[in-house]
């Protein structure tokens, strides 16, 4: 199994460095709303959950794309070929985690694992984002996160928030 991007919500402080730096590298400006990952913060409960693309083994976005614009690269990343995207948005509805969206020009964009060296992981000082083979607790954590599938009609931001709420309930006795 190739290396995976992994999130450990219990370790996330909500600092947003991952999303801030991601947007700087991908968008050329500090713009977390356009980052390829999203941290959902619950300040009152002292909980945060990084919303990441799992690069699913059977990716719903890839299956949904009528133009075959979505494929898997040599690092195992599910990537979009912008030149083939027709902006239909079927992938956006298909992703249960809200991790693929359309940009201002109606082209789909998502996490590409930075060519196998994700910048977000290097930015995380608390080990809430990791890149490696999921084993043991990390495998269980990935399983719990991937189990939280949201329905297609929900907006991506809402999917991510609801997923994070479910994780807080599962991981926090006072959630």
């Amino acid at each position: 199994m190739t290396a995976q991007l992994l999130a450990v919500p219990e370790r996330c402080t909500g600092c947003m460095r991952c999303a801030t730096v991601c947007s700087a590298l991908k968008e050329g400006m500090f713009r977390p709303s356009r980052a390829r990952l999203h941290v959902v913060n619950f300040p009152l409960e002292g909980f945060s959950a990084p919303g990441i693309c799992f690069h699913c083994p059977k990716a719903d976005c890839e299956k949904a794309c009528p133009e075959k614009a979505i494929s898997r690269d040599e690092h195992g990343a599910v990537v979009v070929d912008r030149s083939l995207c027709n902006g239909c948005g079927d992938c956006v509805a298909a992703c249960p985690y809200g991790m693929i969206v359309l940009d201002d020009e109606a082209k789909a964009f998502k996490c590409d694992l930075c060519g196998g060296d994700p910048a977000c992981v290097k930015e995380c000082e608390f080990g809430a984002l990791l890149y490696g083979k999921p084993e043991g607790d990390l495998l269980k954590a990935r399983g719990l996160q991937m189990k939280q599938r949201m329905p297609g009609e929900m907006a991506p931001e809402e999917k991510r928030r609801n997923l994070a709420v479910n994780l807080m309930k599962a991981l926090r006795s006072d959630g």
Partner: protein
Amino acid sequence: MNLYAGKILKVDLTHGTVTAEPLPGKWIRRYWGCWGLAVRLYTDLADPVVDPMAPENPLVIMTGPFCGTAVPLASRFCMVSKSPYTGTIFETNCGGAFGPELKYAGYDGLVITGASQRLVTLTIADGDVRLEDASDLAGKGIFETEAALKARPGLAEAKVLAIGPAGENRVGYACIGSEAYRQMGRAGGGALFGSKNLKAVVCRGTGGVAVADMPAFLAKVDHYKKTDLLTEDNLWAKTDGTPILVDVTNEMGIHPTRNFTHGVNEGKDAINSDAIKRNKVADRACASCPLGCGNYTRIKDAAVEGPEYETLCLAGSNCGMNDLEAVIRFNRLCDDLGLDTISAGNTIALAMDLTESGIHDYNLRFGEPDQYLQVLSEIAHLSTDRGRQLARGAWETAAAHGALDRVAASKKLEFPAYEPRGNYGMGVAYATSERGACHLRAFTIFSETPFDVEAMVRHVIADQNKNAIKWSMCFCDFWGTVSPEIMADLLTAGLGEPVTAEELTAAGERIWNLIRLFNVKAGFGSDQDTLPPKIFREPLKGGPHAGRVFSQEDFAKARALYYELRGWDENGMPTDEKLAQLELTRL
């Protein structure tokens, strides 16, 4: 525009209008952002003799050039106005994520003038800015207010500034809360929101912050993060956070205990950093911070992000409360009701002292948690006689009982958690701060010569000038090693034009003097640059500095030297020569 959004949002609450205006370019390279730029904007608008609670008193909320970028520990934002608690100009700043959100929405800051007839919220969703009726939020705590606003369409990811009942009732030390546990805490910002009938500001921004050369800027950020920030001098914030100061200040004998009578708390192990760690659930951070000093703690059903050192000491040791569960409950109640924990802790400690010494019975006693927790709601809601009295703060309460010899405050603002009889520099810092007793203008506790008056005065002036520019860059205190050289290098890369450390250092002194010009016009002079009687006359008890005072003679020498080194006259007025050097004109 690089690093800046380039716009200020002007909000006139009397007429219900909002307009976006360009950031005044002529002031950027002289005042930079956050504190400095807010002071420049505020002093341009406000009459120094204005009644702080009148509609004519503006509020200026500002971010800084690094806010919203990857520069670490640079996401703070501040408010400048005239304080209803002290009558001085004041600055109060806050971490969390509101500052970056405001930049992403397209604004460097807000200028709020006038007063609304009805309770309102200001909603900013990128370019869509509205004033909306908030009568449904009247009387609600900060936690519920934030949740209600974020439940509105499109605002789930918004950040909020809000007041609780204390602010609505204009309690003098009401704070403004943000992201549940972060505050513009000191000197009554919440009362100012209340005076304007402004319940909350809610902001969602989806834009971005640009820099001149992104790869070069990111390389510099990474370099300073690794070689300067994440080094031994600063890593205490990651391993412990501010509770580490409980042990540090006790060892130094400068840990205020039982209403500033003792310099050590024998029971401190119940509330020190080890006690916090035993009850910690998670690390928490402000936007952009890789240190994450926040400790989310829980005991039984009581949880809070905190308590921070100031709360552990002033609501803990100073109230004789060696009970972490009680301090957590106190902290959470203050954060929700919208009360500053430093002023609240001091005021209740004073009331305990007055009760136990038989001067007046407030039914509050050192170490007894029930009434100590109960009285907070009475203060915030002004619902009982003792609540109404204690809502006026420690100074006014002591004065009401002819007991000013028992209070610890300068310019009526209660002391933070460092005993000046054990470190004269903190006394000079408290007496000369623009907003009254404050530990965020100068901080001398790690000095090797805490009783050397000249060394302490020089230390205080250097810190004040440096912090005036550091807070203007919206940095957090806890990047302790960030220098004007680092700031200048990051500004140069971000703006794409050369900035020097020298011009930043000069700006720091300029900002401090402009603040002074306002306070002098507001009626403040050397008489107010002082310490309360107990520091001059009552010997400290316990610890290595038992028996010490900071005598009035030593203090007078320190103040005279401070004015001389500042280039101010004997009443503390900046001289013409000093103003000419700083390119400042009198207000």
